[in-house]
């Protein structure tokens, strides 16, 4: 019988493993958990403890590193600041399994965009905040962000920065000034254009060119916009669909026109002063990135201390001067006025009310519509 052992063994272990693999079949969805979580939020108290070594996840080029150094010096402990968020969906895809399993994701603050915060708040992938540790946020948060549909009392989220999604370009390469969303689709720039792979951004901007208000758009209108993008993509109009990573291509001149974030362009201008950002005549999309404490985070007091710290107008001003997005903190323009009047008058950082009126927040889509939109967009981006 010995000569049969190998086969027999493989057979046995094989069927055992098969049984085991199939026994735990099915992947749990988020819905059930979300329903369970839709209970009143408990009042929480996060004790003041030494900050220790804690972790802050953010997007690239989204902070003046001096702020981190000053924070460590003032409050003790050490913040490990990682720039590992390049795309909301990709980041969510990476940590989703741990969140779903109720495990810590090893981060104490994550900074994600509105439509992603919707998911995290709904599924309770976040810890409620202790407002007693956030007096600056309570006092200095700008009025129009005090309440958002997915977090009416700001119990889970604190805005980090807002920004506009418009068009960044190099006039030397395009040979003319741009002013319209349609310029992204101009065949003269074929293969020299990038578009953001985030459907909320790309479909949103395209909807504006079709005369539709993206905040109120129906899923059918959104799909029509994606079809327009698809046609242009098939014709080779777009060189790539990108996250933040269009910046090198744009600065190096590989691309001429980019569907871009306002703050990125202001930063890139220091490398390549030719670059310009426009709010298209049709309007632009407005996003807000929010700080959140992921569920089961270890250093909640440290996270709240940081959130509170960046809401001191002086600190917020340092950030605004560096990151060049729209600050959610009151009184920043006044502080910046004193040190950098040029920045205080830059419409990309402190837009006029007239421009602000043209900025549209993202639509609130149901999970099903959102998935339909994302799948349609994924087909366009080739994946």
């Amino acid at each position, binding site marked *: 019988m010995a000569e049969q052992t190998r086969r027999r063994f493989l057979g046995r*272990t094989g069927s055992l493993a098969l049984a085991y693999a199939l026994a735990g079949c099915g992947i749990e969805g988020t819905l059930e958990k979300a329903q369970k979580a839709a209970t009143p939020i408990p009042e929480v108290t996060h004790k003041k403890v030494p900050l220790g070594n804690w972790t802050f996840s953010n997007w690239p080029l989204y902070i003046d590193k001096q702020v981190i150094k000053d924070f460590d010096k003032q409050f003790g402990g050490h913040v490990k600041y990682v720039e590992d968020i390049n795309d909301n969906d990709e980041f969510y895809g990476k940590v989703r399994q741990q969140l779903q399993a109720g495990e810590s994701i090893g981060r104490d603050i994550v900074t994600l965009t509105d439509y992603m915060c919707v998911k995290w708040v709904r599924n309770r992938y976040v810890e409620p905040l202790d407002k007693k540790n956030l007096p600056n946020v309570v006092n200095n948060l700008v009025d129009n962000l005090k309440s958002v549909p997915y977090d009416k009392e700001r119990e889970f989220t604190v805005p980090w920065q807002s920004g506009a999604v418009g068009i960044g370009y190099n006039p030397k390469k395009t040979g003319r000034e741009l002013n319209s969303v349609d310029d992204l689709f101009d065949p003269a720039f074929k293969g020299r254009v990038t578009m953001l792979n985030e459907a909320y951004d790309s479909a949103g901007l395209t909807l504006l060119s079709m005369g539709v208000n993206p905040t109120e758009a129906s899923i059918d209108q959104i799909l029509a916009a994606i079809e327009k993008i698809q046609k242009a993509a098939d014709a080779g109009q777009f060189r790539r669909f990108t996250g933040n990573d269009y910046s090198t291509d744009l600065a190096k001149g590989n691309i001429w026109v980019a569907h871009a974030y306002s703050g990125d362009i202001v930063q890139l201008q220091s490398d390549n002063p030719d670059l310009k950002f426009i709010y298209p005549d049709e309007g632009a999309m407005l996003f807000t990135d929010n700080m959140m404490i992921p569920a089961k985070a270890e250093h909640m007091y440290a996270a709240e201390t940081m959130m509170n710290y960046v809401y001191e107008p002086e600190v917020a001003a340092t950030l605004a001067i560096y990151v060049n997005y729209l600050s959610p903190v009151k009184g920043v323009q006044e502080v910046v006025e004193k040190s950098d009047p040029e920045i205080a008058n830059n419409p990309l950082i402190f837009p006029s009310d007239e421009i602000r009126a043209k900025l549209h927040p993202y639509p609130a889509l149901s999970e099903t519509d959102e998935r339909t939109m994302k799948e349609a967009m*994924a087909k366009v981006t080739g994946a």
Partner: protein
Amino acid sequence: MSLHRRRQLLPWLFIGPGLLWLLIFFLYPLLNQASVSLMTGNPEQGYDLTWAFSNYWDAISEYKEQFGRSIVYAAISTILCLIIAFPLAYYAAFHAGRFKNLILLLIILPFFMSYVLRTVAWQLILSDDGTVVSFFRSIGVLGDDGRLLASSTAVIAGITYNFLPFMALPLYVALEKIDPRLLEAATDLYASRATAFRKVTVPLALPGIFAGSLLTFIPACGDFINAALLGTPQQYMIGNVIQSKFLNILDYPQAAALSFTLMLFILIGIFLYARVLGARNLTQAAV
């Protein structure tokens, strides 16, 4: 315990750790993903095993373009790798003398740097205003508006570059083992150098060619970094689709179905390859 029983147990003791490793880190994930590939559902409601074999058909019909591209790109890169690596390995094995180790070190050296970084470096090398592009423009290979980056050429170049060591090293090992006296014998028997190369060196190098081709072709088929960094959606390979299905869309069943389909294609390919080139010649070479 009787000697007989001990004899029976001993082999298990030896293969035990390896077997355990395979069970936990290969067989279990494999079976797990096999069951995922037959599920239906969505990220909110969750996925349930419904034995949806249609996932496979959907995956193939929807992404045949990316499948085809993966195989074509990987095949071209493998051939290019062979063309580049063979002379390199040949020189290192027969003529390099004391520089042999230096050459081998140089082949491995890129591995000291991260894969992604090496590929990003190619972005810079091939950038539109870079020297490579302007050189090709000046000699007329590229039009005035031509580009290398974000094209099939760039993706294939990236794959070829990244997998070259996987071809060069097995080739070197195979060539190095060849006894020079066999070549001398061939010339003694009035074979020209070309004939000796064809009838002696190449057949003896076949195991190396076989191993090198597999080591290059298989990972190249599943690669997504090169297409993502050096290509456009028109160049995306099946790896890009799988990555985005797993991480962005969270459509695990289709991602798993795509992975298994790719694996199946590769296995069939290897089988055919082994039948055509391998089996007969490999045994001949060994004799």
